């Protein structure tokens, strides 16, 4: 009987959840690989570094969201047509901003992420040099 309430809740919620998604079949290349393994490998590498728009912390390669399937479809079709993966990434960044890409870029807002560790290494090096000098003197 302990299961009765949760089960009842699921039964009530299920139609709501179900109706919040479409029933269209996935896009042609959402789950189908490209015939050319080299191109598929390229597409796969790109898809793993593109961020799903509705699932926040998944790449489009990992996500079963319909829009992620549609993005995979578009990536595979474009790769198959000979487009450069980085050009596809730029096309998406032009539309969704840096959000959509997991590949870090050095920009006006992100440069401290790269500069601070480098700065810390320099400071640590300087401190260690002074210490070693002192003990050897």
């Amino acid at each position, binding site marked *: 009987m302990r299961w009765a309430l949760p089960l009842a809740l699921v039964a009530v919620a299920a139609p709501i959840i179900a109706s919040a*998604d*479409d029933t269209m079949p996935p896009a042609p290349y959402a789950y189908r690989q490209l015939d050319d393994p080299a191109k598929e490998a390229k597409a796969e590498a790109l898809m793993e570094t593109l961020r799903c728009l509705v699932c926040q912390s998944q790449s489009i390669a990992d996500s079963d969201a319909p*829009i992620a399937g*549609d993005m995979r479809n578009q990536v595979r079709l474009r790769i198959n047509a000979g487009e450069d993966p980085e050009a596809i990434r730029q096309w*998406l*960044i*032009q*539309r*969704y*901003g840096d959000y959509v890409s997991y590949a870090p870029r050095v920009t006006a807002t992100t440069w401290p992420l790269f500069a601070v560790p480098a700065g810390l290494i320099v400071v640590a090096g300087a401190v260690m040099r002074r210490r070693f000098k002192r003990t050897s003197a």
Partner: protein
Amino acid sequence: MSEPKPQAPRWTLWLPLALFVGFVLLVAAGLMRPKDTDINSQMIGKPLPAFALRAAADGRGGLSNGDFRGKPRLLNIFASWCVPCGVEAPVLAELQRQGATIEGIAIRDHKEDLNGFLAKNGNPYERIGADDVSAVQLAIGSSGVPETFVIDGKGVIRYQHIGDIRPEEVPMMLAKLKEAES
């Protein structure tokens, strides 16, 4: 090691604690801030990409980027399977009543489902294009349904509204349409 070791000023004793408190405050502020999951389109100010979609429902033609000529229009991205889109329908009807021209793009939708949706909720759309693989949606930087874009008379994207338009947002949307006239 002949010189006496220089004494650090007393206040430096408190520095680690101050840093720690500062860090806690920073984290607390981040936790308090409501989460913003909107992904804004970067296409504002840019022309609509070229597209031509077949008619998504009976009684309304398909939609192409060439249809956005002459006067500002609303472009509503929606779907019959989207619950908030049903909630938004009366608001769109009100916008239309107050003079807005509304074009629609139905995402991943079946014709029968859409016909049913329009019969139930009313049809404020001039034309409805069917976007079966979200291609146009991706091309304009939209990430969900419903979203509503303001497109000016030259086909340039001027404004993006994410989520359903609330009744109290009708005047704001009409103002955005008016703004797009210039």
